[in-house]
């Protein structure tokens, strides 16, 4: 299977790998939202952490970790690059199809982009829940 150059670049040198602390630590942080999607049995788990600037409401930093194939790792890397500097609404609007296009994912790998989209949404929802923000602004999916 031939992968695109962009995909290989993101796989070999992924952006924003890491976290803002242990699971227990980030749970205490009001400014951090965590999304964990997928399952080990399915061969893909993505963990996305967003750090929100609470004065501007923008995502100032994002970190990911991913257990998965090369496409899953690259999709997570792209997702973190894209959401940095965006408002929660803007980040919510990112679609998996955008990632498919960016990385030229083959059809069997589309689920990787879906996971990336889901991880963004899950992290935002976690942040909103922590801060008592109702998901009123959430776009219909």
């Amino acid at each position, binding site marked *: 299977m031939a992968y695109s150059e962009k995909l290989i670049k993101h796989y070999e040198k992924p952006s924003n790998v890491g976290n803002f602390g242990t699971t227990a630590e980030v749970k205490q942080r009001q400014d951090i939202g965590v999304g964990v999607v997928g399952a080990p*049995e*399915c*061969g893909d788990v993505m963990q996305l952490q967003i750090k929100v600037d609470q004065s501007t409401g923008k995502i100032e930093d994002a970190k990911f970790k991913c257990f998965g194939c090369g496409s899953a790792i690259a999709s997570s890397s792209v997702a973190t690059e894209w959401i940095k500097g965006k408002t929660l609404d803007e980040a919510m609007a990112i679609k998996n199809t955008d990632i498919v296009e960016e990385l030229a994912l083959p059809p069997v790998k589309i*689920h990787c982009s879906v*996971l990336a989209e889901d991880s963004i949404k899950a992290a935002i929802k976690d942040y909103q829940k922590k801060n008592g923000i109702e998901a009123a602004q959430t776009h219909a999916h």
Partner: protein
Amino acid sequence: MGLTLPVYLDNAATTRVDPRVVEAMLPYFTDVYGNPGSRNHRFGWASEAAVDAARKQAADLIGAQPKEIIFTSGSTEGNNLAIKGAAEMYAKKPTGQEGRGHVITAQHEHKAVLDPAKRLQKLGFDVTFLEPPADGVITAEQVKAAMRDDTILVSIMWANNEIGTINEVPKIGALCHERDVIFHTDATQWVGKMPTDVERDGIDLLTWSGHKIYGPKGIGGMYVRRRKPRVRVVAQIEGGGQERGYRSGTLNVPGIVGFGKACELCAQEMDSERERLLKLRTKLETELAKHIEHVQINGNKDKRLPNIMNMSFGFVEGEGLMMAIKDIAVSSGSACTSASLEPSYVLKSLGVGDDLAHSSLRLSMGRFTKEEEVDFAIEKITWAVHHLRELSPLWDMFKEGIDINAIEWQQH
């Protein structure tokens, strides 16, 4: 001799054709090109003589008589012919009825056995798919317990293609002969690497392929016992009546010559080869286990072919791992390498969890594998697993003491 990249460690998938095999084949494309079925001229005779010689080479490798060898296109065809052909021949009731007889096979057989067995179910046969124990080895006891009065056929592979485990074939053969049940074994991974004697081992039908033993693709052999008992199968490919009517179609003479040569070379070299491969495999496994924590060897560690290693690297996904070691050609039990989202059904049948099945690699060595290639693989895999664990949220959770199995994952 330096290291040439990429390194090929996927010899259980297919092997490089031995140059001596290619050399033996070449005259049969342009010089000796007659149809062995042409009985009336010397072009035909020359080809027929070459086929006869190859049939002897193939028979000698497994302790059979040349007349007991049928040339096929490979093990997929051979397994189809053996399983469907024997079931049809020994059916207790005619086509169209139910209860035509009982067949025993196992869940971790190759698809080329499982799918013909499933076809038999549609044709009115009962099929038992034995569940392998955790070490993957099917025992004669297990087969015995599944036998019924109407059992007509047992098909158990000699050695498994994904994990290399060796089933109790001679014992299963003896059991089948006690009960007058036909015994077929898919010996694709076994023959050519391990000593084989169809008489001693109690085999009625045996199938193997050229391309796993340094011969060409598209050619294989099938052994059909001719005495004590005389075994017969119903042909699945009909036409000109070649191969004593068992397999019609003009013989693939260059392929057959190459197959024969490949069999002969294996017979000569397998003993020293086996020792060398075992040393390489031991080094590979020992070093990986030394440098990487949380690895597991899948399948029985002792009852195993010397050239196959199947290892799970916890918290790292197989395809991601393959991409990180892209200079090494291996296989993975991960779903991501196939179109389906299911991980290896072989590992699953052994009770290996889906997560560890996704984390598995199969490395298989062969005649052309060099020690420096194994060293390279050890170095690269060690690096890649550590690198990917740095990326793995599961590794973090594990290190933080979180029980991954207790988490309610969102299944997709």
